[in-house]
């Protein structure tokens, strides 16, 4: 029996869940499970956005500032007396504008993504600072706070429903549409993709637009949950989202990556963060554990690959 990378990760996620359920007091309580469901979507959406970008072999260092800027957009609308729907539209518009800028410089001019987004990260942060003067904007309507704090049908947190919805949409877009296939193709071989008649620049542009759309959704959930927005909204998720995508099996050089893998990785992070918290670990030690897991899993991948190779050559020798 051969398990895919993702199924093994799923088993690891299940294992972590069971282990923490055994050793962490109150891990299984309905209160705790619900609070985990409230915390997961905002990070999950950013991680999905990062995954889509990494599949093309790029990286988006500006993603959390795109989210923060789009949150600022929503906050400005709300505090100036506009309704929820216009606020959401403005949030998405702000994010798409940022994404289009990144996409333009990366796909049309051809500068490498890490450099562009390094620059736009500082740029977007500056724009947010110029708008907010470093202060936080807060005090939104009750209706808006339902997005991040409300329940769907009185049972499941609304935000996790939104997350699942977008995870499914992302999975379908990546695996069933021609755009999605081109994304994988571009990630594994740019030149071959171009020569097989794919408009590379258009594919890339859509990737950065889609990533910023996901960032906007995450921003809406975050602003609604915290009832305020500041320049560092979600900025701690930046490197973590890269870690989640990579742990989820996404190839950092591009060409491979699945939504379900990233979702499992996000779940593992969430379980560990929450479980260690319950066990009374210092919050900074959670980072240590996550860093160690990231390196360990990749080292294990390396050794299992090597082991497989050794086994294969032995088989070949025997056959000869």
């Amino acid at each position, binding site marked *: 029996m051969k398990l895919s990378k993702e199924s093994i990760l799923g088993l690891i996620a299940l294992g972590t869940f069971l282990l923490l359920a055994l050793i962490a007091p109150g891990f299984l309580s309905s209160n705790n499970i619900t609070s985990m469901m409230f915390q997961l979507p905002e990070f999950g959406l950013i991680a999905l956005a990062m995954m889509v970008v990494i599949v093309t072999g790029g990286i988006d260092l500006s993603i959390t500032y795109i989210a923060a800027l789009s949150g600022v957009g929503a906050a400005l609308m709300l505090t100036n007396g506009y309704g929820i729907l216009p606020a959401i539209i403005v949030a998405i518009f702000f994010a798409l504008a940022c994404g289009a800028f990144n996409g333009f410089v990366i796909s049309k001019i051809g500068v*490498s993504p890490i450099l562009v987004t390094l620059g*736009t990260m500082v740029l*977007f942060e500056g724009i947010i*600072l110029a708008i907010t003067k470093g202060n936080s904007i807060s005090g939104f309507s009750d209706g808006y706070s339902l997005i991040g704090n409300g329940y769907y049908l009185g049972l499941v947190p609304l935000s996790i429903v939104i997350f699942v919805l977008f995870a499914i949409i992302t999975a379908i877009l990546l695996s069933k549409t021609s755009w999605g296939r081109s994304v994988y193709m571009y990630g594994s071989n740019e030149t071959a993709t171009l020569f097989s008649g794919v408009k590379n620049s258009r594919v890339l542009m859509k990737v950065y637009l889609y990533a910023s759309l996901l960032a906007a959704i995450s921003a809406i959930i975050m602003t609604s949950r915290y009832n305020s927005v500041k320049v560092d909204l979600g900025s701690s998720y930046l490197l973590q989202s890269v870690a989640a995508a*990579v742990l989820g099996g996404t190839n950092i050089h591009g060409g491979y990556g699945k939504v379900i893998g990233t979702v499992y990785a996000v779940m593992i992070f969430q379980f560990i963060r929450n479980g260690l918290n319950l066990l009374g670990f210092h919050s*900074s030690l959670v*980072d240590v554990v996550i860093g160690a897991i990231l390196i360990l899993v990749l080292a294990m991948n390396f050794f299992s690959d090597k082991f497989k190779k050794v086994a294969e050559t032995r088989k070949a020798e025997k056959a000869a």
Partner: protein
Amino acid sequence: MKELLKQKEISILAIILLIGAVLSFVSPVFLTVGNFLDIIEGNVVLGILAIGMTLIIITSDIDVSVAAVTTAVAVSIGYLFTYLPDSWISVLLLFLIAPVIGLVMGLVNGLLVSIIEIPAIVVTLGTLNIIAGIVLYITNGNYINSTSFPTSFMEFANYELLGIPILIYLLAIVAIGTWYILKHTLIGRSVLAIGGNTQSSVRVGIDYKKVKLFVFAYMGVLAGIAAIAQTAYTKAVDPNGMLGLELTVIAAVVLGGANIHGGRGSVHGTLLGVLLLAIMQNGMILARIDTYWQNVVTGAIIVIAVSYDHISYKRSQDKLAKIEVEA
């Protein structure tokens, strides 16, 4: 002369001179020796780290753990001060111990990248998390201020030779040393070769793993030295003081003309990149630009610089192709 003008470093220098000319009109303080010494001394740490990062970026890798490693060494120095006797020997000892602590952390990165073959960005992301987490756990985020520092170290930190702060000499030594390594030693040439074309360089017999290990170990050593400089400059150890510095370091290296895909980069280019960032920062303060707008300007300049660089690179490549066709 034409050759000289084509060099990337010259175009950065031109930008710096342009900004400098504008600033000297805007503020009479800008073109003073005192202001320049302040600018350089304030960016010694950035400079040292950027020089180390240059080698890594030349081999087409990246290290996002530099700020965490530097902080970890600085915190270790802070704790060491309570054990070290108050004499010049302690300062010398510090210059032995700090690079070694950095070296160990650099070696861990290097081993994981070269032997286990995990992509460098992932390895350093992991070690960033681990090191920063441990530092925060141990220090609890509190910082150690200069009251616990031995007076000999304070004397060292404030020492000026010929009116120039000692830290600037430190940066100069690191820069010249690294330049020499890159230009005149076997390992330095191998670094450039691997970055230029990995396959060919392995075929001519360059030990790929050894070179990768070297660049990360060297980065560690420089992070150790940068930690001393940081402690001497700020006269305190702040566990959160260098948060996010790794991205500024990368920006400086790239502005300095190193190619993120490897093979291209130089110490003097990187120093110019650091100078560009530093002058922009200093100039915006002198020009009384609203602090909140400073990041907008910095970000815009980075995007414009990397785009401009790429466009001119593409043009030169196009020209190359044409010549081949005609011949």
